């Protein structure tokens, strides 16, 4: 089954078509990453490495 499945692949077209698809998807994901944030979800976690020695658990400052 797998041999038939993969034998139909056109090796030159596959990388080009999938690359175009991938770039499009990647740009969309990046756009979403940078332009639509839920700051409350990420900012407290992003600062976790900087909290060492302050003696507080992040759980305490959860909204």
């Amino acid at each position, binding site marked *: 089954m*797998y*041999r038939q*499945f*993969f*034998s*139909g*692949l056109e*090796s030159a077209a*596959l*990388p080009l*078509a*999938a*690359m175009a*698809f*991938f*770039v*499009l*998807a*990647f740009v*969309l*994901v*990046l756009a*979403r*990453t*940078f332009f*639509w*944030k*839920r700051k409350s*979800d*990420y*900012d*407290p*976690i*992003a*600062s*976790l*490495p*900087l909290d*060492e*020695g302050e*003696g*507080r*658990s*992040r*759980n*305490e400052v*959860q909204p």
Partner: protein
Amino acid sequence: MRQVRIEYDDQVVRQFAFASILFGAVGLLVGVLIATQLAWWQANVAPYFSFSRLRPLHTNAVIFAFVGNMMFAGIYYSTQRLLRVRMASDLLSRIHFWGWQAIIVAAAVTLPLGITTSKEYAELEWPIDIAIAVVWVVFAINFFWTLAKRNEKHLYVALWFYIATIVTVAVLHIVNSLALPLTPWKSYSIFSGVQDALVQWWYGHNAVAFFLTTPILGIMYYFLPKAAERPVYSYRLSIVHFWSLVFMYIWAGPHHLLYTALPEWAQSLGMLFSLMLWAPSWGGMLNGLLTLRGAWQKVREEPVLKFFVAGVTFYGMATFEGPLLSIKSVSALAHYSDWIIGHVHTGALGWNGLMAFGLFYWLLPRIYRTPLHSKRAADAHFWMALLGIVAYMLSMWVSGVNQGLMWKATGADGTLTYPSFVETLLAIRPMYIVRVLGGTLYLAGFVLMIWNLWKTVRAGSPANAVVEVVVDDTPKPEDRVSIGTVLAGRPLWFTVLGFLLATLFVFVSAVPAVLLAVAVLVVSEIGYLVAKRAAAAGKPSWFGIIERRPLAFTVLTLVAVLVGGVAELLPTILVKQAVPHSGEAQQPYTALELQGRDLYVREGCYVCHSQMIRPLLAEYQRYGEASRAEEFIYDHPFQWGSKRTGPDLHRQGGRYPSLWHYAHLVDPRQTSPGSNMPAYPFLATHRIDVALGARKLELMRRLGVPYADEEIAAAATSQREQAATVVADLAANGVEVAWDSEMVAMIAYLQRLGRDRGVAPTRTEAVATEGVAAGGGR
């Protein structure tokens, strides 16, 4: 609410850091030694300290001892602080540390002794493999137990990379190490030929990914913000970086096997995913570098940041070069050449090494509670390391491109311009000397670091850090959701749906492909709108739920990793290889040939010689007919190699008389003036264990090689009979050698290569004779 006093276990951090520095020095020293051996063959000391036995020691020492111990130091330090809890078990931490060091010592002893599986970066034999699995499980239990006991519910992104490392390395190691033992120090891979090659490079590539990359990325995400004193540039980008990287990396292994006998579809998938990997890799690199936005002046002042910034930049360079080399037309030039060696060292010396140095300079002053002894010495180390890497990289680029071009060069009449392999070797020798200088400079910087850190440690005192934390145990809405809610999360299903549509995309023609692309966009848009509405309603996001659940997170990571592995490995393993295009399959090796093959493995011949002729015109002219999958069905393990410091050997059988092989093995310069191959004169005096021949056939039969009972019973006799022909051939030319000497077995194996039925002769006697006269072999 409760207040908790935590004393972190920094003892294990110190132990791993010291072990990394110690073994790093050893690994680099061996690296300089083997680089010297390539430039000056006289530096080989047979049999234990020849290039072919020391090269695996170098790679294992750098990967598993230097980077491995550094990684564990970083993981133990950051995990405890990110989770606000001491490691769950001091005992398991100690077992992990001492167990890992015992494995390294075992590797350092066995590899020079020639005890090897010949699978690159997985050379250690089965008892050590079992020990690795056990110690890794100990580490995993300790890590996940600590996760369960944590006082901080959020799992910072560094911990994700550690989780991915732990689960994936376990899968890779176990699958690639599957073997049947022959003796306490010898085993045969259960896979053979194409399957073995694919499994090995699925492992080999992902050892780079999940041992040398993901844990170091975790270290980057923790220690770079700490050193820069600001949070990571985009936490959200780190999430995209993580999931895309762990999903895509696992597919890219076949780019090590382009133009080989591996099925075309697997090669194309490997190339495709390698190209795609460039995007998430650079996303991670930019996320690291942009963390320093507004603080670039600190890089000028702080050696730690210098190392981190340069290390991350080298990560970017290596992850650009990797996809470039995965393009088939580039691979046709670069594969088997020194360009690949340069690429590997961009990652190892640049990314891993510089990140390790930055970590040590940051970490040791803190866990010894004293300032770094000398910032100026650290700065000097930085520049020495940087110049060393540049010299190494440039020399290998020049050497690799030259090799590739000279191997392919043809004259006006269509014949090879450089038919003698040694010509290409002599042309690149100056670059080999530059490499020695670059590596020595890098090692000298390392020694300077040891002095600097030693003075720092002497001035300080070891003590475990103690902190008081207030823990809020009040359950959050995110904690009350069931596992069903996690699995029903929309992002998960949109991802699965998107992946299925993308998979379908490659099997349809133009019009349906456009419709599918539109469908993907519609699905993405719906997902976006639904998520936006949920956010507006104040519901916890799926990310908010999943990042607090280590079990669900681990399972999803494992699934993301396994998809690629299963999709590539399963079809290849299920397809029966023994369906040759030519109508003839490989014939099983005789007992004597098997004995010779094991010697070929023991001496590490695969380190410099491939046994895989690619379907390229220049390779056909130089070596003969392209290798085919069915010619390797009884090769447990495969011996395709990955580098040609010497010529390919797949069609070596019958090309030269036995006397040529004898002379070549005793002193390669006799037959190939200018060769840098180590000499193996001891093969003529060492004896094989004849009785082991039958056991080898028996074990091979259990692996599927069709030996009859009579063949196994007559193994001792058949070895003597086959050896007699080689001995007589040598005696006719005045060379006396015992029939059961290792030399005879090795010659029997070499004379067998590529001579299975169904392989058409591709070289005339005239050409072969000319090759001998010109010193065509190495």
